[in-house]
């Protein structure tokens, strides 16, 4: 029983960061139709930004987190303007190749700048975990959980309660109609990519101190983000959130009770099942065609 409780606590914490990654990608994927292979690299970008600002420049940990997210936002906007804008109108495969190229360049760039030795970031949180009964959680992870939930809430409000969000949703439903109604599509695309990127960077900056920061950290993050988007359905924030928690749950329970060797396979088994039985994802709204 305590083991199960511990697994559930782990799931909640892991799931919150998976959700962040998933929301970032689902926005980009859903609204822009860009298969963003560089999503994981923005995740590691966030982590390295935190390392640079927090450790090398010595800024306060919480301020460094905010700076890392802002930098991620700028990096995303830059990628959109430089790489994606000229590709507008190109088919989905072409932009996909561009993003694969961006991923390779970013990952090797990280290795070039920071070297292959993993970096770690120390935090102001106590080393001793919080122990409740037989369950224990590190303070850092608890903070990550709260921060991730807050960011999920902010994204939800942004998409559903602001004018920008409304324009983004309109663009998602029908790009041409939105453009005809006076929505500045260029700006919406840039904003979408920047917001999606900053969420990935936030996930990286939050998880960087929990794990270690290395140039390869983005690979698995990318893969999982895609899994979550498929699970939750394209363009759905609620879906990505639930998808994130579901993936974490499948991994935790799979590793805990089935086999730890197949931990990462568990999530993908669920995805295969989803694709077989409900290919639009568990929570996708019907998409208007044309």
């Amino acid at each position, binding site marked *: 029983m*305590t*083991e199960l409780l*511990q*697994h559930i606590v*782990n799931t909640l914490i*892991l799931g919150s960061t998976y959700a962040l990654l998933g929301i970032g990608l689902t926005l980009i994927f859903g609204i822009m139709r860009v298969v963003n292979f560089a999503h994981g690299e923005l995740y590691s970008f966030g982590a390295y930004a935190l390392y640079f600002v927090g450790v090398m420049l010595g800024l306060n940990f919480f301020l460094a987190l905010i700076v890392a997210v802002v930098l991620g936002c700028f990096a995303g906007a830059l990628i959109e303007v430089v790489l994606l804008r000229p590709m507008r109108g190109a088919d989905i495969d072409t932009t996909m190749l561009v993003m694969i190229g961006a991923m390779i360049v970013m990952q*090797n760039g990280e*290795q070039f700048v920071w*070297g*292959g*030795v*993993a970096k*770690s970031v*120390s935090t102001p949180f106590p*080393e001793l*975990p919080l*122990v409740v009964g037989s369950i*224990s*959680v*590190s303070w*850092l*992870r608890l903070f990550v959980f709260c921060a991730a939930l807050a960011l999920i809430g902010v994204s939800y409000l942004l998409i559903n309660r602001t004018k920008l969000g409304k324009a983004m949703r309109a663009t998602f439903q029908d790009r041409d109609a939105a453009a005809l109604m006076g929505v500045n599509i260029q700006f919406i695309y840039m904003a979408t990519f920047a917001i999606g990127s900053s969420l990935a960077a936030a996930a990286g900056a939050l*998880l960087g101190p*929990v*794990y*270690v920061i*290395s*140039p*390869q*950290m983005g*690979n*698995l993050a990318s893969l999982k983000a895609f899994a979550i988007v498929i699970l939750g359905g394209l363009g759905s924030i609620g879906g990505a959130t639930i998808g994130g928690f579901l993936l974490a749950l499948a*991994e*935790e*329970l*799979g*590793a*805990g009770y089935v*086999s*730890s*060797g197949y*931990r*990462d396979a568990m999530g993908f088994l669920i995805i295969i099942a989803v694709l077989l039985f409900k290919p639009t994802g568990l929570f996708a709204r019907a998409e208007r065609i044309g």
Partner: protein
Amino acid sequence: MRRAHGLITGAALAAAMSTALVTGAAAQTIKIGVNEPLTGPFAASGTYVVNGAKIAADEINAKGGLLGRKIELVIEDNKSNPTEAAAVAEKLITGDKVPVIMGAWGSSLTLAVMPKLMEYKVPMVVETSSSSKITTSGNSYIFRISPPSSVEATEFKSIMPSLGIKKADFLVINNDWGRGSAEDFGKVMKAQNIQVGLVEIMDQAAQDMSAQLAKIKATDSDTIMVTTAVEQLTLVLKQAAALGITKRIVTTGGSQNPDQLIEQAGAAANGSMHLTTFAPWYPDKTPDPAATKYFLGEWKKRGYAIAGATESFRGYDGIRTIANAIQRAGKAEPAAITDALWTTDFAGLNGQIKFQKQGPAGKESGQSMPNLYLIKIENEKIVLSGS
């Protein structure tokens, strides 16, 4: 004019050829192939090994080289990927014509290279890999200076009683190295009447081992045997501490880089124990203190992180082993080097390097038996607790 030019060229050529005949040997270098992961998940470790190898090559060249020629390391990146490792071996052998290779860090990488060695009959000194399969699969071009997990486990037997282990769980990386360690250590423990509980596996790229650790936390074991490299080990120690696990953690495999663990895992590393084959913290306890001190001095002089020393010494010893064999072979040819490797006998940084035969009769691989040390991290300091 044209004729005069031709004459001069001819004379110059003749002169060049005659000097080449006299000093031909010196003009040409002896190439040694180095097949290591310089990018990908093992980039840090592979780079350390290559840096160690360069120290050895510079040292040998400063003393005049081998057989009157300088040695040249042809370093190639296998990208931490078995397919690439095999391709790199092919390139080194057929493209660069190296007579001998050092590589390829990980067991899965080395295993992928091995058929190429058979195909081209070129020997390889294995500096890091520890899967038992490498020396028992009947490849007579393999000469390993790192301990396989079976040797590590056997040597651990004499250290075990002092730890008073009753029941152990395993947490190992999901590759030939990790699974091999769990098997070999499990066997030795069972023979000592120590119970073996869970054997949990973690993917090579996994960053979150909380699920496995939560499962291990709930068992009645007193010890967790962990096999993986430093990056993942850092995470295991941090996550175990976060889950409030108080069981003893013993790590195997020799790629723990304890100084890096202390730096990155902080207090979470306290109390953890590590089996290593090199003890740079106690140079006087190593088999050749002078060589150890020279190596460490050179390592520091080049500005490398000291945490890398426990990994890089393998590269240093690997190149010295190869150079030693070439010197005795009298020529830089694969067959002569293979023969000479069998009669190697000199003090490496981690023990006497001397190859014993292992594997099926007639096509044995060479295996050297290094020393083993058990160190413990106490108050973020390294303490030698057994050897």
